């Protein structure tokens, strides 16, 4: 079984993010592997260990992704591809999905595992769009994967009214939630080996496509500007005798906030 996982390098959202003149202030930002993609990588590595799958990861755009890809190598991923092209500067999810479609078609994969969303855009479109473009079955928000045989997997999806158990015929695309696993920390031996591994770097031409073919010049949507979000302020905080302050707060909820 050949597995393709996708990895995006994203802004660390735990740190402050500032906006100036409609744009994100680059200074002070740090970049990390998207948490959902890290779970996708872990899921792929587990399938390698338990079922002998061959694992490849691809990242598209984001500049120098060497650190992120090496981290995934250290976790156990075998092959890494990084696609970088100036034409992808304004890419939206549909363009990323078109590029991934080309990667998929070049590699004859059985299963694509992506994170269900990225913590910068929080869109959750790319994996599902990829499946649509490829005409493959797809399940999103996956919290468990079991291999049935070479042609079938069973996945658990966190749905609206419970856990949905879906049997997928391969090839297929799944997008995973972070709760599917606890990604391993790379060990020293893996980190040392990862340093020696090659990363296949390519632009759109090397991938056998062009900016036009992936629609790079015509994104379906464009960000006009960023704005500060409305920040809530902390209100009244009470410390002291539990009985006294709790009674006080309940009175405020009833009389001042009028929500009881």
């Amino acid at each position, binding site marked *: 079984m050949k597995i393709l996982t996708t990895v995006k390098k994203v*802004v660390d959202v735990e740190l402050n*993010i500032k906006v100036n003149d409609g744009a994100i202030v680059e200074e002070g930002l740090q970049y990390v592997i998207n948490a*959902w993609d890290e779970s996708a990588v872990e899921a792929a590595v587990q399938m390698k260990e338990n079922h002998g799958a061959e694992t490849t990861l691809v990242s598209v755009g984001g500049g120098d992704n060497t650190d992120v890809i090496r981290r995934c190598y250290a976790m156990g991923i075998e092959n890494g591809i990084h696609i970088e092209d100036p034409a992808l500067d304004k890419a*939206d999810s549909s363009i990323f999905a078109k590029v991934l479609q080309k990667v998929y078609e070049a590699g004859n994969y059985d299963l694509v595992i992506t994170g269900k*969303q990225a*913590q*910068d*855009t*929080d*869109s*959750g*479109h790319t994996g*599902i769009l990829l499946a*649509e473009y490829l005409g*493959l*079955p*797809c399940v*999103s*928000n996956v*919290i468990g994967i079991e291999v049935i045989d070479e042609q079938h997997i069973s996945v658990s999806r966190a*749905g*609206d*009214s*419970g*856990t*949905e158990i*879906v*049997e*997928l*015929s391969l090839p*297929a695309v799944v997008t995973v*939630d972070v*709760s599917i696993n606890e990604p391993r920390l790379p060990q020293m031996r893996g980190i040392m080996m990862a340093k020696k591994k090659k990363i296949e770097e390519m632009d759109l031409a090397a991938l056998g496509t062009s900016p036009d073919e992936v629609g790079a010049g*015509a994104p*379906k*949507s*464009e*960000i*006009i500007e*960023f*704005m*500060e*979000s409305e920040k*809530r*302020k*902390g*209100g009244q*905080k*009470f*410390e002291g005798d*539990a*009985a006294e*302050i*709790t*009674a006080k707060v*309940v009175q405020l*909820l009833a009389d001042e*906030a009028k*929500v*009881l």
Partner: protein
Amino acid sequence: MAKVLVVADIKEGVLKGSTAELCSKAKAIGAEVAVAAIGSSIEPLIPDLARAGSDTQYISDDPGLEAFSAGPYASCVVEAARQFGADMIWFGFSESGKAVAPRVAAQLDAACANEITDVTLDAGRIEVVRPAFTNKVVQRVKANTDKLVAVVRAGAFEADEGVTGSENVVKLSAPAPDAKAVVKQIISDATGDIDLADADIVVSVGRGAKNQEGVDLVKALAKDLNAGFGSSRAMVDGGFMPHNKQVGQTGKIVAPSLYIAVGISGAIQHLAGMNGSKVILAVNKDPEAPIFNVADYGIVGDLFEVVPILREEIKKVRG
């Protein structure tokens, strides 16, 4: 006149409040409004669909549509959108909406936006506002296409009591089931609890509850208040709470009148799921917990001591 197709949010045979919210917003921007309703035995909901504010109802009612399956559901929405000539297709905030919206966008060659909090339509130009970077900033996005598919963030729009619609039913034939993604089973977690998405009050439990005893204590408070009972990620990972009760960026996004966070420190992923609440009360024994930075009212104290008192005092004021 612009046309908005609202995809009805139906759960266990009941039409959810988000449908009326979306229809009201669509009418407020001057659009003609239709709904697409998908499921099994949903025809009794037609009067509710009209009352929610729609003037046309595209109904896909088939036993094969009882269990959610993204492929066939998307086919129903695409068919309704084509027949109606929709400029925009809006989904309420749900896992099924998030799964179906990109498929519909791909099939209609439309732009797609998740978690929108506002939308404008001016001379055919569609713009939306939505949070980004785990709700730390917001972004204004324009569609470069004449069609947009969007999932609306929970609590973004309000239902207008004055808005109503009329019955004009179009029945759609059922699509073929997805032979390559077969739903084998749904392990329901309908436990008779109040649905988090609908609850006027939500009580959530976090790591501070420590154990099952703590969870049960906070759950009793939720029950007293007839509130939805949610959770931080820590308690889901710890096996104390089911996955579908997790409030946060990766789980449910809620915007109740009152949100009570008990023993929750307030990681940004959790805040992103509840900071649209009208009033927030936090109970935490750490006075420096980040949850107090967003809470309107804060009680610094041990939840095992505070929650029983809270229950008593609430009973007193509610009579």
